């Protein structure tokens, strides 16, 4: 089982093709698809208009999930063959003659036969479903394609989808325009979806699963097997609130109804977010995966804005942004502590659970082939966005994100990201891009506190040191015995050190660094490991602080929040428990 949440796993397939690096890709302009689900055998007809990226005598398109019956280019029948370099994934379509780059070409194809859903890229899994009860066609994937999308780049197009389905089935697809349904009087109905908002992510569901619609908030309908109706009701309620939040935060999506479709466990992904429609694997509704439902819904619907309404040339702009948005939404629905828990969970999963301890920069081209891919793109990437938010300020950062969305799909890159942040906040993020996104790793910081009291004043001095090449402002929260707090920050400079002295009205019994987990970082008390409150002495506050984290653990599974913060795991065994509490008692008694 792959516990992945994604915009489309096809992305990982894309980059494995040799053509990725060199080919001048064709530009998809418009695509119309007709699919007859009621016919035996099934038939799909596609009309694609594209501009040739380079002078060519053939074009290379994703191989469909059912056999081609005929292909013509600009009205001339042509031949086709399985790709030599990527057999099974790519089909080479012969052009009637060599055509120069920039030529607009119309490819028309008819495919007919048994739908072969066996996934080439994920052996043992199905990429689609087609039986008498339902048809589920996720975003197209080379080898199991049902519409055409570029296998070499994110490339959006406009167009339409016409579906003939059994009249008893509900049909959900694409975003945007009102679907039009007409009864054919022969036990079938025809549904027409047209999309003016450019996309390369089209999904299709036609079936008779139970439908659950939100009662308040944004209109959302979920389709689910009857066994999981109660859980879908919750998922739909969360989605309705999350979508209201995203609409307000970023820009309203071009759809007035959203859909959530349950996919069988035989599909290889946990979730897939399209524009206004998401697919969730049914295992998400199993009791043992209850923790995934809300974050999964929030992440996948985040892709409406990050991956569809906007997108860039790198999965950072889809996955990291969707994950960042998910926890921002969760914080909005619940409280700031909920947001912090997600941020911490992501940071911890990246810092301590990377496969083989591999690491690579988020924007390093090698990230695609690294075992650290998921850790870096989803978990570090989303936390780094939180870091940028902290540096720019919440409102200006939001304004920058809104500008990215409004620039539309395909236009986001790191330079634009930096310039939008600068425009809205005045903060030049270049250096932070350099250290957080273009180099691997994270800072391990040691902080030594010293408190001095006199009759008139208490001073707190902090000395911070890291060997890692990071410079940053660390938020610091001081708490006094009566519970009052004071927010400060500690600057760690280019030389890896930071030093501050604050005059205070009282003794700071608890000093917390980055309490909202705005960055990937490890912070350790430098003088006495048990002084987790960083006030220079091991006392009852340290005992309470560790006790409050009892039972937290470093999870073995992605997206499980073990509540883990390494600061409180004194013996570093991956669990905060009685052994750590005893270390606090021993450290105190040793004085």
């Amino acid at each position, binding site marked *: 089982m792959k516990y992945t949440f994604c915009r489309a796993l096809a992305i990982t397939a894309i980059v494995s093709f040799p053509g990725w690096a060199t080919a001048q890709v064709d530009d998809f302009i418009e695509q119309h698809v007709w699919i007859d689900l009621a016919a035996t055998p099934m038939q799909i007809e596609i009309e694609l208009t594209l501009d040739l990226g380079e002078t060519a005598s053939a074009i290379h398109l994703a191989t469909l999930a059912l056999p081609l019956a005929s292909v013509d280019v600009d009205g001339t029948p042509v031949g086709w063959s399985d790709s030599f370099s990527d057999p099974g994934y790519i089909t080479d379509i012969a052009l009637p003659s060599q055509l120069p780059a920039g030529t607009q070409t119309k490819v028309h194809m008819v495919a007919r036969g048994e739908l072969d859903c066996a996934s080439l890229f994920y052996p043992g899994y199905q990429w689609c479903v087609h039986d008498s009860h339902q048809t589920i066609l996720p975003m197209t994937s080379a080898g199991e394609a049902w519409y055409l999308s570029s296998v070499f780049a994110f490339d959006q197009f406009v167009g339409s989808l016409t579906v003939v389905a059994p009249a008893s089935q509900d049909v959900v697809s694409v975003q945007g325009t009102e679907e039009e349904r007409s009864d054919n009087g022969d036990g079938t109905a025809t549904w027409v979806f047209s999309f003016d908002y450019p996309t390369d992510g089209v999904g299709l569901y036609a079936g008779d699963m139970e439908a659950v619609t939100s009662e308040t908030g944004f209109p959302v309908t979920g389709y689910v097997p009857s066994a999981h109706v109660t859980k879908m009701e919750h998922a739909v309620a969360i989605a309705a609130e999350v979508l209201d939040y995203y609409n307000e935060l970023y820009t309203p999506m071009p759809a007035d109804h959203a859909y959530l479709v349950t996919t069988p466990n035989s599909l290889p992904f946990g979730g897939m977010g399209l524009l206004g429609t998401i697919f969730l694997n049914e295992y998400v509704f199993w009791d043992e995966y209850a923790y995934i439902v809300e974050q999964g819904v929030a992440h996948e619907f985040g892709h409406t804005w990050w991956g569809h309404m906007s997108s860039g040339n790198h999965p950072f702009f889809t996955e990291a942004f969707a994950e960042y948005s998910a926890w921002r939404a969760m914080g909005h629905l619940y409280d700031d502590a909920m947001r912090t828990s997600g941020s911490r969970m992501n940071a911890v999963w990246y810092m301590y659970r990377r496969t083989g301890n591999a690491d690579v920069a988020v924007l390093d081209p090698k990230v695609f082939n690294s075992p650290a891919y998921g850790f870096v793109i989803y978990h570090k990437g989303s936390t780094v966005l939180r870091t940028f938010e902290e540096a720019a300020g919440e409102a200006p950062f939001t304004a920058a994100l809104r500008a990215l969305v409004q620039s539309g799909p395909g236009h986001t890159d790191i330079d634009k990201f930096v310039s939008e942040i600068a425009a809205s906040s005045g903060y030049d993020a270049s250096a932070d891009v350099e250290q957080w996104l273009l180099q691997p790793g994270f800072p391990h910081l040691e902080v030594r506190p010293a408190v001095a009291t006199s009759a008139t004043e208490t001073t707190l001095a902090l000395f911070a040191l890291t060997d890692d090449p990071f410079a940053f402002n660390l938020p610091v929260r001081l708490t006094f015995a*009566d*519970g009052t707090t004071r927010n400060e920050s500690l600057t760690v400079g280019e030389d890896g050190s930071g030093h501050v002295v604050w005059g205070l009205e009282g003794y700071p*019994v608890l000093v917390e660094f980055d309490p909202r987990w705005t960055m990937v970082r490890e912070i350790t008390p430098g003088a006495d490991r048990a002084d987790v409150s960083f006030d220079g*002495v091991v006392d009852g506050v*340290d005992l*309470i602080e560790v*006790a409050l984290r009892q039972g937290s653990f470093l999870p073995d599974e992605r997206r499980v929040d073990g509540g883990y913060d390494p600061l409180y795991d004194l013996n570093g065994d991956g669990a905060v428990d009685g052994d750590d509490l005893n270390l606090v*008692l021993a450290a*105190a008694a040793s004085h």
Partner: protein
Amino acid sequence: MSQRRYERTRLPSRVTVIVLLVLGAVSGCGEQKALSFNADAQPSGPRLWLQHADTHDTRLTFEVWAAEVGAVLGYSFHVRLDDGVVTAAGEVTPAAALGSSSEAALYLQSARADDLAVGGVRRDLGETALDGPVLLATFPLDVTGEVPTPLRVERVVFRRAGGAFVATSAAGGTIVRKGGES
């Protein structure tokens, strides 16, 4: 070998010095007044205070009490003293205010020269009502110098389940010699 011989010869002379000091003190002051404790006025509301329990010659035993704090997960406080005048005469003994078994609660104690620290926390992260008065700790001090000398209670922290802080007042006091000090 020579080290041991050296220590053996030094021991009697240390005893002699202490005896001479005590004799000197008695002869200097005439009749010695008993050591005692002037407690600061007890505040109202959630509070913690020092109480003098016992005196044996120069050793005074103190208790730390709390009242009206409400339900708490745990607590922490420090007693600061002038280590030129008083010294901790043994372990600080936390009372089992939050539960008596180590499964129920853990208690921390720390005795530095000028700082005694006590803490406690419930293991189950639940709460115990400290409406009191409830004894939190006992500690003995030896007076080795000139009084009066203050005992200050500082950094008094009570926290509810979940970690919220409870604002609390605290009262310390002054070790004195009973019967009118100049």
